[in-house]
């Protein structure tokens, strides 16, 4: 196999008029173009009915859920809540909460349920207007887990109660830029080829207090 004349490559890339090629190169050009044309025949197949049957048999959540079920899922999904308070009120509220919690749970505060843990998401995105997390735990849906930058220093944070185990996720910055967490411990291929990766977080179940 010998290298092809660069002029032929340029013509095949559409960068040169094939009519300007010498006769021998023009023949090679025609041969390759006609060979490619032979491969453009579309097979007389269809997988449409097969795919749609599979989709109907086992529909994804986005398809099958009605409004009521979506509401139930929304209510049951962990989400970060941000409350902004003046420091003086913060101290007072903290003291009040501590009193209430100690009275209500003498053996300690509320904890994630069985086989759940707390996931902390932290990212440095200076200048970002919004940052949120999408992942396998929320069906990669936006609008469910927002990070906050309380100090306006570009460090965004959110915490959520998630089932124990591994979860893939990405940050969505300003509603349009998907970026893997640069601080993630591990990354996994996103499964769609092209070498793109999702960040991976491992949530450990909170062990019961002795």
């Amino acid at each position, binding site marked *: *196999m*010998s*290298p*092809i004349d660069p002029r*032929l*490559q340029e013509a*095949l*890339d559409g960068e040169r008029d094939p009519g300007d090629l010498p006769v021998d190169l023009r023949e*090679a050009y025609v*041969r*390759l*173009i006609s*060979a*490619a*044309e*032979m*491969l*453009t*025949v*579309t*097979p007389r*197949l*269809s*997988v*449409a009915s*097969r*795919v*749609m049957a*599979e*989709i*109907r048999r086992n*529909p*994804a959540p*986005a*398809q*099958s*859920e*009605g409004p009521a079920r979506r509401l139930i899922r929304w209510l049951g999904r962990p989400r970060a809540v941000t409350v902004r308070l003046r420091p003086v009120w913060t101290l007072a509220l903290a003291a009040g909460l501590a009193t209430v919690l100690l009275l209500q749970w003498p053996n300690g505060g509320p904890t994630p349920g069985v086989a759940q843990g707390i996931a902390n998401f932290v990212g440095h995105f200076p200048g970002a207007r919004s940052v949120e997390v*999408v992942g396998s735990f929320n*069906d*990669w*849906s936006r609008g469910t887990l927002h990070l906050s930058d309380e100090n306006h220093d570009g460090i965004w944070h959110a915490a959520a109660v998630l089932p124990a185990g591994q979860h893939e996720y990405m940050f969505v910055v300003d509603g349009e830029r*998907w970026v893997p967490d640069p601080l993630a411990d591990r990354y996994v291929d*996103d*499964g*769609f*080829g*092209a*070498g*793109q990766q999702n960040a991976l977080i491992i949530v450990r179940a909170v062990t019961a207090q002795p």
Partner: protein
Amino acid sequence: MENRDEAPSRGVTEMVNNGTPADVDVVAQVLGGDGEAFGILIRRYEPGLLRFATRMLGNPDAAADAVAESLVRAYRHLAQCRDPGRLRSWLYRITGNRCRSHLARRHMNDISLSDVPPPALADGSDTWAVLERGEQVALVERALAALPVEKREAFVLKHVEGMSYEEMAKVTGARIPTLKMRVHRAREALLAALEEVVR
């Protein structure tokens, strides 16, 4: 050899020319709960995906399996499509990935040009022109199948699917200079294989 699919390739935000809804609108419809709308996308991209998979796998039945699996997978993960305006690239990426998985199982990468017997000339003549059309197609298909998978993929996306190098980069994740090199090498190998037979 420009884009061969019926639908626009990218950046579609309005109704496409024939009055059918744009990809972004169909994707929103599906994610909103109308799973049947996915049929629009299947009809739009199925021919190109089947052609691509058939050229990658060299077998229409295996290609149909790969495309069906890819479309179901695309449906399940549609929310992960980060730019529905470039849905075509995303679908080709998933299908290409699925084809590579099939090939890895079949070890087709191990095939080399020397393993692929050239078709016998019908009458012993020595020119490409006298080959029957069917023989020519068989020869080209065999030469394509003998290429390493990355070069085969690059050649098919460029010359069969009519993609630009920019779109090919989105489909494969490879850099444009890399893709150009793969296409150039694929052309050289194909031309050498064709000339070998008709010499």
